[in-house]
């Protein structure tokens, strides 16, 4: 109880300078700084980001490194193992697997990123309109989404690629036509939760328009789940592309993606297993890296969910 003994001197003002007091001692931590601090501790996720950056660089410049191109046939040196001239060996038409791997990286990453981006745009718009307007509109919009998800995703994608001309954009369109629903659901759930918050009410009572509330208040507050979903969409898209290539619906020859390379290599797996090794390894590595980043982001961005 001795602590409660107070002296007169305790109430005397401490000397201070006005300028000194105004100074902010520590850096203020925003949500994002805090998230970054948590994310940085996750060594595996940082390593994954580096891996993705390296893969991106190799996709951009890797095709010219070995002095070979990805489409030249050379039947005399077909199915050659790893050597000085062909760093990853050659495939059944004598094409350089090293160059094809990095050209394939370009296609696979491009498909993954653009499919994820389109899903993001459509999903956020659909989900936020549905969640924000609510009522009948919400019910109908979500019902449409329900019906669309009644068909297995890969089945829709396969059907669409069958009827569209073969090519990069057909694959992307087929993948995004129902791919956005997951994002829309998540965004709708978030908007539903956030729109009753006091700051939204405050903004409304100050006369802010719906679009302004959406952009300035709701979307910044639900960026966390959006980013996590986005990161986890990318490996999915890369997988779907490989899956389609496997069914013979991938990018047409002589273009290559990791999926078409894997699928080609499977035919000669018994005799030339190294042909499967490189594209398969890079598909797994990329998916692993994006998955680890996604998990890391989820842990970093969602303070409630930390364990």
């Amino acid at each position, binding site marked *: 109880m001795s602590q409660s003994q107070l002296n007169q001197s305790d109430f005397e003002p401490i000397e201070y300078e006005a300028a000194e007091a105004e100074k902010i001692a520590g850096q203020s931590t925003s949500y994002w700084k805090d998230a970054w601090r948590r994310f940085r501790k996750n060594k595996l996720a940082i390593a994954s980001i580096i891996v993705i950056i390296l893969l991106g660089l190799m996709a951009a410049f890797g095709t010219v490194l070995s002095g070979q191109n990805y489409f030249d046939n050379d039947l005399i040196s077909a199915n050659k193992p790893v050597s000085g001239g062909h760093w990853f060996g050659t495939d059944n038409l004598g094409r350089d697997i090293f160059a094809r791997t990095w050209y394939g990286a370009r296609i696979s990453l491009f498909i993954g990123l653009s499919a994820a981006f389109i899903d993001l745009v459509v999903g956020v718009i659909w989900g936020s309109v549905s969640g924000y307007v609510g009522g009948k509109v919400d019910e109908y919009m979500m019902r449409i989404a329900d019906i669309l998800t009644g068909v*297995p995703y890969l089945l829709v994608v396969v059907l669409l690629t069958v009827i569209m001309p073969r090519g990069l954009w057909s694959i992307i369109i087929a993948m995004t036509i129902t791919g956005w629903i997951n994002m829309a659901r998540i965004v*709708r759930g978030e908007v539903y939760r956030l729109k009753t918050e006091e700051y939204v009410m405050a903004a409304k009572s100050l006369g802010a328009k719906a679009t302004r509330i959406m952009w300035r208040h709701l979307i910044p507050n639900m960026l966390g789940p959006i980013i996590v979903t986005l990161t986890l969409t990318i490996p999915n898209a890369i997988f779907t592309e490989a899956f389609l290539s496997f069914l013979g619906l991938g990018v047409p020859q002589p273009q290559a993606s990791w999926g078409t390379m894997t699928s080609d290599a499977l035919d000669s797996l018994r005799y030339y297993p190294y042909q499967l090794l490189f594209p398969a390894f890079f598909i797994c590595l990329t998916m692993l890296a994006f998955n680890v980043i996604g998990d890391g982001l989820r842990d970093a961005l969602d303070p409630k969910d930390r364990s």
Partner: protein
Amino acid sequence: MLKYILKRFGYIIVSLLFITTITFFLMQAVPGGPFASERKLPPKIEQQMEEAYGLNDPVYVQYVDYLKNAAQGDFGPSYKYKGQSVTGIIKRSFPYSLILGVEAIFLALAVGIFLGVIAALYHNKFGDYAAMIFAVLGISVPSFILAAVLQYVFALKLQVLPVAKFDTFWHTVLPAIALATTPLAFIARLMRSSMIDVLSSDYIKTAKAKGISSKITIYRHGIRNAILPVISYLGPLVVAILTGSFIIEKIFAIPGLGNEFVESVTNRDFTVIMGTTVFFSVLLLLSILIVDIIYGFIDPRIKITEKQGGDA
């Protein structure tokens, strides 16, 4: 309850109608008829064939006919294989897929739940890390790559299991593992996080405080409550197994429905594509409905007749 089931059936019918319509018109939109092969048929014969398959009728008549027949489980004849009906092909090939699928589902559930529980019990210890590394790898390695590697290692190099085909139980081992791994990893992660939640809840503490052995606490109080999210994952699990079977059955040369679907895509055998699509969708929608009903029985906290506002 009955009202709920009826309502869900209503939605299923709408979904199916939508799917059938979309697939029908998509297939109509494809350039070139089913008989436009490399070998040009004499125009008379082509006309006759189109007449026989009803392709000369106006589109809406074809559409109504197709719906009528599909409702009775008749998806018409295969364009590619003369004398075979789509329904016949489905009947012949589905049992293989069913056996493989059920095996894979059991494998995914058993091992996935086991790994998840282990990870939760040894939270932030070696067991947890090992199980979660396995789970992340399982999610990141596509099933067809895993299938190829398994085939190469166990069938071609070690020669301990058959390479392909579908005769004995041993033939099903590799494809079932390849099919189960990705969903298995998802289940392990789901189970882990829900088990961690449950283990820190009050009733577990009460049970421990009462001196109940840790085994009974884990089994009776822990796993039983933690398993609920896994049950809600059963729907997506069926989808994953179903679509996974396309590739796995092709790699292991299993004459199942997935393989048949892939064949029909490669052959542009449109009636088979449509028939299998509709069949897959029926299977999927029904299994999701069953899972939802089971869920309502298992977890009395969830009243399925109640409308949920927040997360639909």
